[in-house]
């Protein structure tokens, strides 16, 4: 591990032939990328397949890497694009689900957390609520959580403008808060 070195420097070092720099980068970000893909696909095996593709794409792109943006933005852009390619090639309706939901579509049918549950249960409920989000909103939230991306960076990674990304994130937060706040329906 190379704890002190920024991601961008490690990526440049890897592009120059330093395999240890790749190991450091991979160790830092592999979990976030895998979780992002799992949340978006809902399929562990598929997520792992896409996960491998994402890192292989990064390896192929090492020579042309320029630190024009934060490394994680670049990395999640690759992951997002790979995900979109997968959805397109599999003719899945998920692409449609990436379209923004209408504003009044507040998630009233999200699973509500058990107020008295343990934190682990709360987490599980959150995961369920996340899964219930529209794909675009889910993606915005997961990128914020896993990639520590700002609204601008989410917009950049997902190829939308800032207002769209902001809107998606706001809706996701509203729905998730509601899901965690609301008492379990009977």
């Amino acid at each position, binding site marked *: 591990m190379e704890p002190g070195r920024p991601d961008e420097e490690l990526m440049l070092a890897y592009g120059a032939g330093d395999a240890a720099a790749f190991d450091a980068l991979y160790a830092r970000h592999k*979990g976030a990328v*895998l979780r992002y893909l799992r949340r978006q696909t809902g399929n562990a095996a598929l997520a792992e397949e896409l996960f491998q593709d994402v*890192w292989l794409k990064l390896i192929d792109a090492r020579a042309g890497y320029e630190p024009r943006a934060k490394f994680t933005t670049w990395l999640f852009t690759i992951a997002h694009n790979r995900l979109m390619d997968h959805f397109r090639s599999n003719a899945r309706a998920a692409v449609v689900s990436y379209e923004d939901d209408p504003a009044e579509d507040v998630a009233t049918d999200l699973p509500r957390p058990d107020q008295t549950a343990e934190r682990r249960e709360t*987490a*599980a409920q*959150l995961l369920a609520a996340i899964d219930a989000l529209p794909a675009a909103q889910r993606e915005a939230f997961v990128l914020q*959580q896993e990639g520590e991306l700002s609204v*601008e960076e989410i917009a950049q990674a997902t190829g939308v403008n800032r207002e769209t990304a902001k809107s998606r994130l706001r809706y996701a937060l509203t729905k998730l808060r509601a899901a*965690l706040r609301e008492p379990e329906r009977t």
Partner: protein
Amino acid sequence: MTDPDLRDPNLDRAYRETPRDEPPPELDARIRAAARRAVGTGPQSLEQQAADARRRSWTSRWRLPLSVAATVVIAATLTVMMQEEERRPRDDAGRGASPMKVEPAREAERPAPPPASAPDAAHSAPAAPAPRSRELESARQPAAARPEPAPQPKLEERARSPEPPAAADSAPSAATQRLENRQQAPVPAAAAPPAPPAPIPAQPPALKAMPQTAPAGAASEPLRRDRTLGDRPARASREAAPAAIRTPEAWVEHIRTLRVQGREAEATAELAELRRAYPDFQLPPDLAR
């Protein structure tokens, strides 16, 4: 940046409690291996190792021989080119008169080519006789490599001494001039390379014969220049004296002097000469009579 209302600490805390999924170790290993392969430092699959070994074996097998062959070809080419460059002026010069081991009589029979056509002759004329080339080659060899005693040691030393760089590139006429200077002025014992023009001592028979057999105009430029320079003082004195005498006034004085000395006939002749030379000159009354 992120608006404060777009970040919820409760959601953040709850999300951190979710399972932190990680890729399985074998997937990690595959990706890391791919990353190392890409930069050429990682373990490779057996198939890829075999392919790389095949590729490497071909390159490693041929790299050294090809490098050596290329080096030899380049070196040989350069050597041949340098020898050609060096031989051309020597051949041109040597065709005029070779001071080396050319038999005097045979050399004397060979007419010296005109200097202007020397470069063409070097290319278009049939090659010089082989023995002659060999002699020139032997002249370039160190003295130790040549067994026979040097009949003209100074010239051999000259042949062995490296030419100034400009000499190889200079025009054939310059080379001819250099050689002729060498022939006319044997290098002194200490043999500094560009000897100044020196008086011509005893020349080899071939050199003596050359002017006789050479066609008109075949004398080289420096030779002609030397002759001209040799003539110049006499001619100058010859021309300077009459000019001093033959100004009309001085001439008149000269005639008067002759008359005073009683050399009347000479004075009359000079006067007639003066009249012929300066018909417009107004003679003084004592001479006008």
